[in-house]
């Protein structure tokens, strides 16, 4: 399990964290991070597309259905947990919970690197699931927020999140706009588009792309995780602002999600150890790319530093360092059982 930490990608994540902790002035140009993630999504999409062209239709549909279930289910579960423990107001709860329905591509890629290094084979269906899961999380986030607003109204004055809650909902994002946002957000477009291109392109032409999408992939991933490590560590400092109980939520959710995901991957989808690990990672990880901006617009009353601290500062590092080998171990247990 410790060997996970000897993968360069994970080590660069750690270097990013350390750079922040020692207060280094190191900064990546903001556009570099964006460029790297465009590349990674494109590469993983193309790669997946080639594989999926050979895949079984029924299995793919099955995977998509379970992805939707996870995408809608995890936020509902997460919202309920937050409301019950009463640490944040309903609007903050809705915004936070939405993040756990979606997926962190960085975590997913680290898991791929982990499996590759261990020489573990994996199914490619989780890749479609990755693409599918961005959207439902955003939709359910909006619905939870709508119901949170009603709850606040019922309680006369509400219990505090933000200085808002007064105006009518007309200025907030309407459902149509949000559905549009959910299905056309940049990550989804790159991922799904590249998959389709990978699937329909002439094999000879794809061969020419190999050096770009395969050979240098691992190096680019290192650079990306380096930067993500710095981002994550920036948020670690907000830990005290968030409070220990809420921080615990950032670890509890991936543990629950990972377990549910592993069970689904093994039992419902019938994947091997590799694929099961990946489904666990999908369920356990929280988005920090597509969902935050959507929540910013859809739930402006919620405090962004709460949901960013949780998804990026706590859940993401937890998954990279502890979660991935843990889910892999779970998958192994299930396979052996």
């Amino acid at each position: 399990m410790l060997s996970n930490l000897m993968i360069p990608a994970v080590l660069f994540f750690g270097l990013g964290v350390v750079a922040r902790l020692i207060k280094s002035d190191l900064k990546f140009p903001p556009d570099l991070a964006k460029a790297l993630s465009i590349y990674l999504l494109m590469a993983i999409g193309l790669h997946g597309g080639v594989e999926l062209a050979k895949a079984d239709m029924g299995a793919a549909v099955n995977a998509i259905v379970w992805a939707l279930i996870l995408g809608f289910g995890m936020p509902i579960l997460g919202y309920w947990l937050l409301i019950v423990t009463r640490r944040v107001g309903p609007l903050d709860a809705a915004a936070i919970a939405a993040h756990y329905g979606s997926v962190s591509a960085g975590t997913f890629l680290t898991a791929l690197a982990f499996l590759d290094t261990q020489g573990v084979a994996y199914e490619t269906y989780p890749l479609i699931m990755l693409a599918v899961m961005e959207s439902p999380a955003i939709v359910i986030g909006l619905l939870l927020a709508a119901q949170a607003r009603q709850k606040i109204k019922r309680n006369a004055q509400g219990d505090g999140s933000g200085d808002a809650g007064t105006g009518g909902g007309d200025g907030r994002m309407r459902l149509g706009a949000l559905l549009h946002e959910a299905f056309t957000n940049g990550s989804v477009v790159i991922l799904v588009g590249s998959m389709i291109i990978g699937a329909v392109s002439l094999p000879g032409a794809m061969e020419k792309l190999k050096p770009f999408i395969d050979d240098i992939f691992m190096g680019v991933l290192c650079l990306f995780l380096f930067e993500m490590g710095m981002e994550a560590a920036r948020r670690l400092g907000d830990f005290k602002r968030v409070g220990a109980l809420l921080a615990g939520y950032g670890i509890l959710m991936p543990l629950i999600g990972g377990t549910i995901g592993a069970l689904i991957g093994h039992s419902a989808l019938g994947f091997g150890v590799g694929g099961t690990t990946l489904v666990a990672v999908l369920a356990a990880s929280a988005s920090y790319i597509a969902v935050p901006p959507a929540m910013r617009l859809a739930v402006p009353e919620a405090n962004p530093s709460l949901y960013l601290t949780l998804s990026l500062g706590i859940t993401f590092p937890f998954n990279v360092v502890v979660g991935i080998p843990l889910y892999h171990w779970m998958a192994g247990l299930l396979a052996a059982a």
Partner: protein
Amino acid sequence: MANLYPEKLITIITTSMLEERLVRVFHERGTSGYTIVPARGAGSRGEQTGMDFDANILVKVVLPADRMDPVLGDLKRLIGQGHHLTIYVGDVAVIRPEKFTKPFGA
């Protein structure tokens, strides 16, 4: 000496996520244009998170004094909906006042 004519300058500082809505306001209220500058900062919610989507914009609109109130009204409505906007207004003078009366995009 140059002849100068008085106008109002509204400055708005807010999240870049609201850009589209602000532009819609300017369009509907018939301002002759607007200018946007990327920015960052700190305010009632502390420092910005620094994430991509959490960037600020600083928006400037020059317009005749008698057209200011409808714009400010729309901005107040956004604030009422929970959005964070820092707004201030100043006096400026221009050479060609007619430039600031024709709606952009018209």
